């Protein structure tokens, strides 16, 4: 997990594999440095392959920005657990978190690059989702 102080949209990376999540975060940092709040999570509650709601909630907290947070996920369970986590946020935060329909590595790098220029949450989500559209 990592973070930086900035008003830019935060990025959360959720993969079934902690190694993929961490590696994707490294690629994001290489592109945008500390200009974007960033956190990653991967693995089930015991550290095996999978995703978990508590880890996702923690990552959202670490990457929190008043501009909102864009979550990039890999496979189905990562999406379902991320949506569950978003629903468990307080109402004011819930409206400012989106789960992007985009590939996790490419989406994270593109979303972070868009965010680093000061774009809105909507623009960050769109940039990630348009990549393969």
């Amino acid at each position: 997990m990592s973070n930086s102080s900035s008003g830019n949209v935060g990025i959360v990376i959720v993969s079934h594999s902690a190694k993929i999540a961490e590696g994707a975060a490294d690629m994001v940092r290489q592109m945008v440095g500390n200009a974007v709040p960033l956190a990653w999570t991967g693995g089930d509650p015991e550290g095996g392959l999978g995703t978990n709601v508590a880890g996702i909630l923690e990552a959202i907290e670490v990457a929190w920005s008043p501009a909102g947070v864009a979550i990039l996920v890999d496979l189905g369970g990562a999406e379902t657990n991320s949506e569950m986590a978003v629903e468990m946020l307080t109402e004011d935060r819930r409206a400012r978190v989106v789960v992007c329909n985009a590939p996790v590595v490419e989406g994270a790098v593109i979303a972070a690059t868009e965010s680093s220029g000061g774009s809105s949450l909507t623009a960050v989500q769109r940039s990630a989702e348009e990549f393969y559209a």
Partner: protein
Amino acid sequence: MMLDRAAREKLVRGLANVVIEHADELTSLDQAIGDGDHGLNMKRGFEAVLATLPGLADKALPEMLKAIGMTLVMKVGGASGPLVGTFFMELGKALPEQPARADLVAATDKAINAVKARGRSEAGQKTLLDVLVPVQAVLADGGDARAIAAEAAQAADRTTPMLAIRGRASFLGERSIGHMDPGSRSASLLIGAAVATLEFEAGL
């Protein structure tokens, strides 16, 4: 339906034990058409539920069901956590403390709709909905405990020839045909265990 504290504890133990006892079977079903973690994930979730006893059974039925759902959401670690957890949480929100059968019919209908929304899925896609939906229909039609349990087992069997449309198994396309859906199997096990307790303790 009267569920006192002892009956509530029995219900929780029945649900947890059936999942834990069948964990290996659920895992092999999931190895055939998924990522092979369903047995372990569900076992982890229900062991965490057991760990909240005896305090869990001190709660009134609605609070107890919500607590079970939240534990599953937090501990299962796969998509089945939010799916099965949502079912329990919504049941807890919809049921009164001492439900009549009509309350159970209405609450299960609401809970199934919440699972559909959570998974963006419908019956017919080789998921736990292929057990929940037909079993709820038997419950709504006035079927007795035996009819409900039988429908749960048969509905899980009926997922074997189905083509998976949602979840990891859908990646296999037609190769998903010929294997029972693991989520349907765990749902049928849970329903069987619940019905056995409710019939004996509460006269379902």
